[in-house]
């Protein structure tokens, strides 16, 4: 026992004034104990998250190019250029449209499908698995499969031609359609996630409330809007924030399916443009500024969405 350590015996429920409960080993040992648990995670988090973000911000104030030895401090010039850079602004527009579609469509379809699947039986269990399957498949695999399906000579257009459509849409080659085709693929993949979260939310809706509403004469639609939907607010919050973050930083689907095309930037997301600026055009400082802007936009959108949606969550 360390010199000077005092042990106070304590019985639960019999605490007395002036009696203090102390851990063996004293204050110093407690601190060491705490640090030993906190330090590994904290240091790894610092190296893999805090440090890269800080470095990115630092790089964004320079003209750094990874393949060029000399780097100069340029202040906020990269940020000023971003405001006039049509490629970056176009990528922001593309990402915003894609994000809106990906947040709204899987949420709407997800809640509808979840309500239909909220029943017992092997068929419903099987259907839940079917809807969730795309979520567990790699995005690259999904993208390759859909690229084949949506090709001009793919099964969809062959089917349309068989039905007499002489010029079926160029799903991935028409610049006016490609972004919506891409968004649909992402929606299709994310739908399963929304369904599962809404199903979990539906399990938590007390049956008595719906029964009470039914006794009061509420029909199925009224019961859904007045009882079920308000209680699904936490599920809506989770789905919306997850979809928003996933869609805004989307990269892999875009890279595999369209690589930002057809043409210049018609489907290029912000993440794709950052990669191209940084590694193809060798302008790391500028790409870092784009990454910082993307981080700020995602953080702001997430915080605002969380605040707004959490306000309508109800406690039972």
């Amino acid at each position, binding site marked *: 026992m360390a010199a000077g350590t005092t042990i106070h015996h304590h019985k639960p429920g019999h605490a007395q004034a002036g009696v203090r409960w102390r851990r063996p080993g004293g204050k110093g040992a407690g601190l060491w104990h705490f640090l030993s648990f906190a330090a590994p995670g*904290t240091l790894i988090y610092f190296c893999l998250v805090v440090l890269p973000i800080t470095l990115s911000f630092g790089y964004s104030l320079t003209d750094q190019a990874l393949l060029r030895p000399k780097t100069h401090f340029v202040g906020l010039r990269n940020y000023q250029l971003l405001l006039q850079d049509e490629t970056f602004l176009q990528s922001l527009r593309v990402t915003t449209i894609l994000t809106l579609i990906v947040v709204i469509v899987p949420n709407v379809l997800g809640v509808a499908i979840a309500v239909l699947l909220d029943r017992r039986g092997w068929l419903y269990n099987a259907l839940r698995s079917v809807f969730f399957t795309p979520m567990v498949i790699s995005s690259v695999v999904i993208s390759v499969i859909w690229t084949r399906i949506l090709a001009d000579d793919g099964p969809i257009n062959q089917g349309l031609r068989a039905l007499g459509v002489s010029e079926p849409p160029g799903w991935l080659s028409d610049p006016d359609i490609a972004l919506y085709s891409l968004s649909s693929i992402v929606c299709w993949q994310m739908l399963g996630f929304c369904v599962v979260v809404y199903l979990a939310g539906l399990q938590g809706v007390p049956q008595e409330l719906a029964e009470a509403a039914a006794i009061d004469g509420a029909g199925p639609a009224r019961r859904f809007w007045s009882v079920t939907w308000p209680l699904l607010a936490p599920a809506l919050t989770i789905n919306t924030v997850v979809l928003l973050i996933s869609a805004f930083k989307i990269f892999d689907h875009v890279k595999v399916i369209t690589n930002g095309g057809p*043409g210049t930037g018609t489907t290029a997301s912000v993440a794709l443009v950052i990669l191209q600026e940084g590694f193809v055009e060798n302008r790391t400082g500028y790409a870092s500024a784009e990454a910082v802007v993307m981080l700020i936009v995602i953080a702001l959108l997430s915080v605002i969405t969380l605040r707004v949606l959490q306000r309508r969550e109800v406690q039972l």
Partner: protein
Amino acid sequence: MSEKGGTVNKLFAAGAMTLAVALALSACSSNTPSGSQSSAPASGGKQKVSFLVFPSPNLPESYWKAQVDLVTKANPDLEVELVAAPSESERNDYAKQLAASGQLPDVQIGMQDLIALEPSLATWTPEELKDFLCPTCGAVNGKILQLPTNTQTIPNVYYSKKLFQKAGIAEPPKTYADLLADAEKLKAKGITPFVTGGVFVTSQPWTAILATDLYAKTPDWMTKRRGGEVKFATDPAMKAATQKFTDLATKGYLDKRQIGQDYPKTQEAFLGGKGAMYPMGSWFAAAADASSMKDDIGVFAWPGDDGALHMPTFTGGGLSVSATAKNMAAAKKFALAFQLTKENLDASVKADALFPAIKGYTPPSDTGPVFKAVYDLWQKALNEKATVPAFSWEAGDTAMLPGMQGKFWSTAQDLVSGKKTVDQALAFLDTEWEKSG
């Protein structure tokens, strides 16, 4: 007991802290460059060299392995580790990412963005280049960073004799007006005049028109653009050539529905008879000769208004060596052996229809009919001194700025799809040029 427990706690805490710091440091530190590691002497006294290659429809991984085996058989002291780029079109981006993270393999083939890669590549000496026909081709700031091994003509126009016949076309066009007339005849018969697709394939007719209408008159146009003497949007010849390219799409000779398909699919489309003409680099001759329709495929040079021959060519595309290769001598030895071995050059002729630019080299006699036709066309252009640079395919100091090649290719898609007008497209290229500078 308690005292012992406190010591154990401290020891445990110290151990955990040490582990955490070690983990964090390993997370923070950069990787050891694999290229550097691989060039260390291997077991048995062999010198290990890593080699970045790009598998493509013409050059599968088995091709690269066989070619490397030929070199290592003749040089048993070398051991070569192949590193495959994700795809042919992404090999440059991949190499730049590897170079930026200190992992560039010792030797690479076919790098295009030599300006960006300049700090990462070793310089070849005149003595090492003595066997090459054009030892100064592709110089960057006067330095040769890549062995100028091959010449390619980009594009030739491959055509289906059967589809030409079906449209009542007796012979290949001699002037641009003939070409347009033939395209109209093909369209009238329900045949797609030009097969196109993907990013760089879509730009091929544009490169062809710029050869006959721009580079034929101003062969140093790109050097002038780099010097700021000309601009895309304000140069009348550039604007007129781009308008011609756009008109091909407006008239329906280029199918905008095809621009979304990838390169292998585009090649497949031409070989499947889905279009009459295919403007493509000389390397396509290999795939054409390997196909069942090789006897049906003819070749002609993209015709200009006056019918004069102007053949867009590029010489370079060979092996380069990393400036940080630990065993530079072994890396250079392998690169030179790979490029100068007769069997290897013959294989590159047959597999990728390359024209080796090596002194005294003649292609094997058993090449296919399409290769022979393309090769003869190039020889004719050489004899008539009718070669010009291939726009967007130039190398070194006469090339576009880093990143601009991809912008040029995707702009071609914008013009074909109608997303951008000629003025918008050219202004866009100028804006992007300024950014890249």
